[in-house]
């Protein structure tokens, strides 16, 4: 599909998504494969005397009964109707769907990492503690922070961690009247949701005509409400893929008002070796190890969202963090003014092993090459697409992603959703759609550095073909995708009459 000749579905030709379609029958539910008396696992016999069972033994356990071979085929069939980075191009904006190196998987499965208990004595897990210590330091260096906690399980949890740190620090400074978090209108939905969860009031700041934070609006807000400010959450580059042209000024304004600046690291793949957010003045930032540092997305996790902070906030990090004593031994430590634990144990350790492997295999020059190539790939796509699709800020160079619009001249009824669904017929995953909210009909495109020019050219060609089809045969797009195991699904019905488990639980 990718890199080869394009053979999308036309009314007359063969579907190109053969890899997605096993046959015309949908895979049965695991319960539909069940037959009493079958089992898919093999357990040892009881080798001790049986004890009397307690009061309260359950009656019935309605789980399926499936033989091992049928179980494996079931899940293999399901995998065959799933699209991953290993299947094809996955230009999902702000998600950084880069290739996930296989060596990471080997490393994380080593028994000395996968088979150690989190509550073992520290002296029995010095290798794991050392890996965590080194990773804390590597991440701190890469982004220019004084200290890092690896505890948060994902970006959104890193955000919660960061906002709680900011608030507690300000309270410790006697700043009890601060409760407002500023969030640009281009921000990820997690930013406002996190701030609300942390008990803060969210105020939205508009963007200016070049896609930056509107400085005039920021100044005006600070003049009126500066003393109420906890801080600003800034994604930079932002969700338009643009590096804010006034980032130092924004940070200075917030700091002068006594607030702190949070960096959403979702888009950090643009900045490795390019600039250190800590050096720009960001006080806190989370890293998405599952974006920038190549750990797989897993169909929606597990990720990891470590948080880095400037020196004045180091004592507030969630713990435990790993320190090294004078004899070179590693030990866990709860920072003095810690916001507490945000997670059981020490973070998503298996994900940390993968990210550590990735960083060690890149070094400084390798990481810079990652960002340079990610940004080059995005600019190349932007340049090649902007004559076909509007790119609202296309007069600027972008960073690692950009936002186009699914608006096609001469095809007023065709929308972003149609274009996205039609791309699937070309064997490609659609970009992020209808986000950021400030761009109508948004198509947010992030190619990442791990894609070749041939793949990008195939995408450009597919997008051009789709624009042509939109004018000549718009119904082809409205009906897309044509080549997948299921066609467009009725999401309204799913929400109105929820069926949330096999055999019913119908809440209507």
């Amino acid at each position, binding site marked *: 599909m990718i890199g080869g000749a394009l053979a999308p579905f036309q009314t007359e030709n063969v579907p190109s998504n053969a890899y997605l379609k096993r046959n015309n029958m949908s895979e049965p539910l695991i319960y539909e494969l069940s037959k009493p008396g079958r089992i898919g*696992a093999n357990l040892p016999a009881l080798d001790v005397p049986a004890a009397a069972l307690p009061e309260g033994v359950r009656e019935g356990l309605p789980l399926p009964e499936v033989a091992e071979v049928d179980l494996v085929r079931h899940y293999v069939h399901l995998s065959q109707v799933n699209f*991953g980075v290993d299947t094809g191009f996955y230009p999902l904006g702000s998600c950084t769907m880069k290739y996930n190196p296989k060596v990471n998987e080997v490393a994380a499965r080593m028994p000395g990492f996968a088979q150690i208990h989190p509550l073992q004595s520290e002296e029995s897990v010095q*290798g794991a503690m050392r890996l965590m210590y080194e990773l804390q330091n590597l991440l701190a260096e890469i982004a220019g922070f004084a200290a890092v906690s690896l505890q948060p*399980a994902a970006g959104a949890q890193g955000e919660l961690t960061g906002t709680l740190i900011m608030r507690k620090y300000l309270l410790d400074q006697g700043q009890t009247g601060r409760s407002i978090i500023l969030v640009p209108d281009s921000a990820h939905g997690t930013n406002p949701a996190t701030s609300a969860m942390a008990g803060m009031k969210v105020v939205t700041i508009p963007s200016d005509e070049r896609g930056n934070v509107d400085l005039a609006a920021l100044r005006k807000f600070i003049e009126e409400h500066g003393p109420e400010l906890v801080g600003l959450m800034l994604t930079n580059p932002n969700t338009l893929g643009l590096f804010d042209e006034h980032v130092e000024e924004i940070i200075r304004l917030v700091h002068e008002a006594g607030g702190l600046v949070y960096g959403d690291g979702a888009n950090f793949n643009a900045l490795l070796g390019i600039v250190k957010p800590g050096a720009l003045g960001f006080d806190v930032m989370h890293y998405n190890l599952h974006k920038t540092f190549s750990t797989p997305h897993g*169909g929606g996790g597990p990720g990891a969202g470590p948080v880095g902070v400037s020196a004045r906030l180091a004592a507030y990090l969630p713990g435990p963090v790993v320190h090294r004593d004078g004899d070179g031994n590693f030990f866990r430590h709860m920072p003095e003014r810690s916001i507490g634990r945000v997670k059981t144990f020490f973070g998503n350790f298996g994900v940390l092993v993968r990210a550590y492997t990735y960083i060690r295999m890149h070094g400084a020059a390798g990481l810079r090459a990652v960002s340079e190539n990610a940004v080059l790939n995005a600019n190349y796509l932007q340049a090649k697409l902007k004559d076909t699709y509007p790119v609202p800020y296309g007069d600027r160079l972008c960073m690692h992603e950009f936002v186009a619009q699914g608006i096609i001249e001469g095809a007023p009824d065709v929308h972003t959703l149609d274009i996205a669904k039609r791309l699937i017929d070309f064997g490609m995953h659609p970009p992020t759609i209808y986000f950021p909210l400030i761009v109508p009909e948004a198509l947010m495109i992030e190619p990442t550095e791990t*894609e070749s020019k041939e793949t990008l050219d195939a995408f450009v060609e597919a997008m051009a073909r789709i624009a042509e089809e939109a004018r000549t045969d718009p119904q082809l797009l409205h009906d897309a*995708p044509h080549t997948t195991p299921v066609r467009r*699904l009725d999401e309204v019905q799913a929400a109105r009459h929820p069926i949330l*488990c096999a055999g019913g639980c119908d809440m209507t």
Partner: protein
Amino acid sequence: MSNYIPNTDADRAAMLAAVGVASIDEFFRVVPEGQRFPELRLPPALSEMEALRELNALQDMNENLQDWRCFLGAGAYHHFIPSVVDAIISRSEFYTAYTPYQPEVSQGTLQAHFEFQSMLVALTGMEVAIVSHYDGGTAVAEAVLMAVHGSRGRTKALISPTVHPQYREVTRTYLEGTNVEIVGDDIAHDRVLSLGEMIDDQTACLVVQNPDFLGRLYTPAEMQALADTAHAAGAMFIVSAYPISLGLLAPPGSYGADIAVGEAQPLGNPVAFGGPYLGYFTTKMELVRRSPGRIVGQTVDVEGERGMVLTLSTREQHIRREKATSNICSNQALNALAAAVYMAALGKNGMRQVAELCYHKAHYAAELIGKLPGYAVVPGPFFNEFAVRCPRPVADTNANLRELHGIIGGYDLEPDYPALAGHMLLCVTEMNTRQDIEGLAQALGEMA
């Protein structure tokens, strides 16, 4: 150039020309000049072979549970994982996919998660399951937040002192942004059944763990009594349960739980030094629209074919922003897949069998250790963990087990429960053979 970056110098030159810039550096002119292209002081890059060698040296420094006999649980459980689990989650169509926002190309993840929800509902006896949360601790915290938000301004969350200490710590952090106070920490660990006395009209919820952190098992009647007391006061009853135990024991749905949560790592996920784990979250249908996290629903496509989609997303942050029920986004999808494969592989009879293995082996261990001079097993029903008073300090006992016998001993209860100074919490699973158990008893006996 890295094997992860396919473009050649010639490709880059052609692409720069297409963009109309002379060099890659031009893309970064927008970065303040003084901060542009900083030095990264990192160790030199390693080849794959060298990286694996270094990682192997690091993992070798850890005492792993393949080589050591482990009697440690306390929230992380060493269970047998059938080979099919890793075979399936290693299918890269699953593990390299994103959240299934485009359902037509994500039916694999979606259907597997729909089945996960179904099996979790079966196991817990609840009505509906969310796909996943980060871990047991955050699942408890999110359940408490949900109860608080639904309580119209109640200001207390009553949490049993025998809920995992770290779950209580996480919940405390999550409640920082509210005016809600956590109560129950200072109740004696053996007074869980009288927690009902503390419920008042300001209590949003009662959280109880069963079996509790100390291993103690409460009967369905005892749990139902707590549920009734909570409900009479208008509070929610939240239960954290060990999913393996539910292969044998009456589930939370049978004794009045409004929300049943917990740590589903024991279902097919390795102990992995504490993560990634799998928080599970189950509740009643009437509460699903207030529940945090992703959920898969069944629907049909335009041709009437069955298919799955993420649903009820109007609760979620990407739609609701600051009005969302939670900020949760990426969490533990692949761990949920592992748990689904595990539950399907063991099935109805295997889940019962593994639970019984744990139960009988733990009781055998308790019987042997209880007979040793100087040791006393804390009385009361239990599933597969129990507290033992040791004649020597727990740290010394564990050091002796480790250094002389290759055994990873139990959890020292004193830091969390000063009244239990000198007590360790031992855990026995199907991974412990009779020989292991007798070896532990003998080693402990020699120390008395």
